[in-house]
């Protein structure tokens, strides 16, 4: 099962190596890992997607929390969450193909961010499945390049009842 784990870490050199090294040393697989700063300059947020049974992921969560510069760890599994990937994709699109491609882009709420003689570069964001679907729809045109961020996520605000 896929788990999205969010870790708040100290913004210090070596922390990424520490986390990545722990995953490698304990033979845990990382699907994706995203690091970025937070509103507090001393803290960064790591969002790690891990696939494994609950027992393995529980061990991952505890091993992460044990690393001294890791401040807080949350596993979003089973919780309402907003999860997004961002992708830049460069697709072969001769002028006569463009209207058709543009309608696909529109359906996915994507954006054309660069355009050349033969290629268009598109920005798409959304849940992982949406990104995958968009890639599949682009395949017939010919994909030149793909760059993806990996998943970032945040828990939804509780709806009080």
């Amino acid at each position, binding site marked *: 099962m896929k788990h999205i784990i969010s870790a708040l870490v*100290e913004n210090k050199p*070596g922390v990424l*190596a520490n986390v990545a*090294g722990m995953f490698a040393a304990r033979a845990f697989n990382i699907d994706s890992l995203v690091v970025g700063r937070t509103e507090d300059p001393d803290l960064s947020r790591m969002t790690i997607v891990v696939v494994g049974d609950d027992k393995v992921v529980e*061990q991952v969560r505890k091993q992460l*929390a*044990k690393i001294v510069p*890791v401040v807080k760890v949350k596993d979003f599994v089973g919780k309402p969450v907003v999860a997004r990937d961002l992708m830049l994709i460069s697709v072969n699109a001769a002028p006569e193909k463009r209207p058709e491609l543009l309608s696909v882009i529109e359906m996915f709420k994507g954006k054309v961010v660069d355009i050349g003689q033969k290629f268009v570069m598109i920005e798409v964001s959304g849940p992982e499945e949406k990104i995958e679907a968009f890639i599949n729809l682009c395949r017939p045109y010919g994909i030149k390049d793909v760059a993806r961020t990996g998943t970032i996520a945040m828990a939804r605000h509780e709806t009080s009842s």
Partner: protein
Amino acid sequence: MSKKSTSSAGRKKAAGSAAQSKRKPGAQIIVDTLIEQGVETMFGYLGGVVLPLFDKLYDAPINFIIPRHEQGGCHMADAYARATGKTGVIIATSGPGACNLVTGLATAMMDSVPLVALTGQVRTALIGNDAFQEADTTGITRPITKHNCIVKDVRDLRRTIHEAFYIASTGRPGPVLIDVPVDVEVAECAPKDDNEFKLAGYKIQKKGHSRQIKAAAKVINESKRPVLYTGGGIISAGASEQLRKFADKAHLPVTMTLMGLGAYDQHRDESLDMLGMHGSAYANYAVQECDLLIAVGARFDDRVTGNVKSFAPNAKIIHIDIDPTSISKNVGVDIPVVGDAGYILGKLSEQIEYQPRKEWFEKISAWKSKFPFRYDDSPNSLKPQYVIEEIYKQTKGDALITTGVGQNQMWAAQFYKFSRPRQLITSGGLGTMGYGLPAAVGAQAGQPDALVIDVDGDHSFNMTMTELSTAVENKLPIKVCILNNGYMGMVRQWQQLFYNKRYSKSYLQNPDYEKLAKALGAEGITVDKKKDVPGAVEKMIESDGVFVADFRVEREENVWPMVPAGKSLHEMSGLDILESMA
């Protein structure tokens, strides 16, 4: 978020505030901070980038022991910590010096030993340039330390060292390494007199959850066939007394891991001695047949469990540990209690009732009389087990024992009966050959009045024997008993049992240890007859100095019983051999 230091050293800091306002070089700050932490003895080896630090150590009121190799020094600091309960300190230079600490740090990490390692580093401007004696010390040691960091600003030095001691010695203890570039040793600042730790991510849960404790007490009270399985965590937590009270009150049989030996007096009837691969048959049978296993400060290591799928198959499992990652890592646990062993055992003791468990204890006692640890005691052969029994007898069970790794270690665990915590110092988790001798040096430095005996193997001893000079120079009167079979004994045993007796590369030519001892300024003796053992042991114990006894023991003796790798605990080999000796 910041954390206030609660250590006594933390309180001491405030008192010295006047002295703290003066500007000082980083090297002086390091020495002053070590003294604030109460460091009396430390270990270390000089090198280029730690020259400023050693210059400040010249007048420091610290007993400083120089090993012959940084690995030896690291084992000494580790064993000093194990013998005293204090945090060990080791200093090494950059590059090769730091690299030589690796085995020692990994040994301390696996056995949860509080250690602070200070390494010099090339100057900040050169880092990453492949400078002379540069190595990425924090990168190399990250997986084998509880925490490590590099200090690039002299103003962070004092706080970082205090944090290192705090992290090393609290929770599940472990080694912490601080890498200090030489320019930071030289740079000056007025050390700030604050106790604010910047450790937002370091939390320890000391008090176990009261509902979990209550649930544990209930199943203990209901249990017909319980076993208490205790590890090194009891010793780290200083919880031997609480363990004894708890075991007495609930009336429980107690088995210990190798790391846990000494936590519970093995002379007591309720002791099942060591369990696991070379544990007692009665401990292993009891674990396999128990209906409740109460694990305290132990981590279900593969040398303890055998095949995990069939480990304690009929038992509910309670696991008490300060480290949440130990829970359900190898074996699924029914009632986990995360917290300090002493605290939780104390709370549990309030909620449990004495149960006679007559049938269970009768069964255990039958196993005990049928399968004690035994060896062939014929007068013509010098058995290694006999040497240990003789040492045990003549030291009245009171010596502090260190060991190498392999057969010597297992025989020491089987045939010396330990009665107090910190009495056995051995490399359990990592299984570091060569640990015994430097460990004896470190332990003797920490316990000057103890009779410290290294029960070693010849191959283990060969790995670090240079540290004999360190013992002699520092007048640390350790005794070394080499159970010399000319083989890498445990490896040979496996080759005999599993590789058709093909003794591939498991023997080498040993020096004359008696002459070697004398050359290095120690006393030495060679014993090759059983009848000479008592006299030699007596001479060794009577000696005031460093003493090496070379016992030329039976070459192909095996350690029994043995749970072969992958088998269940009750599927022990060698029980027939032991019975035939009865």
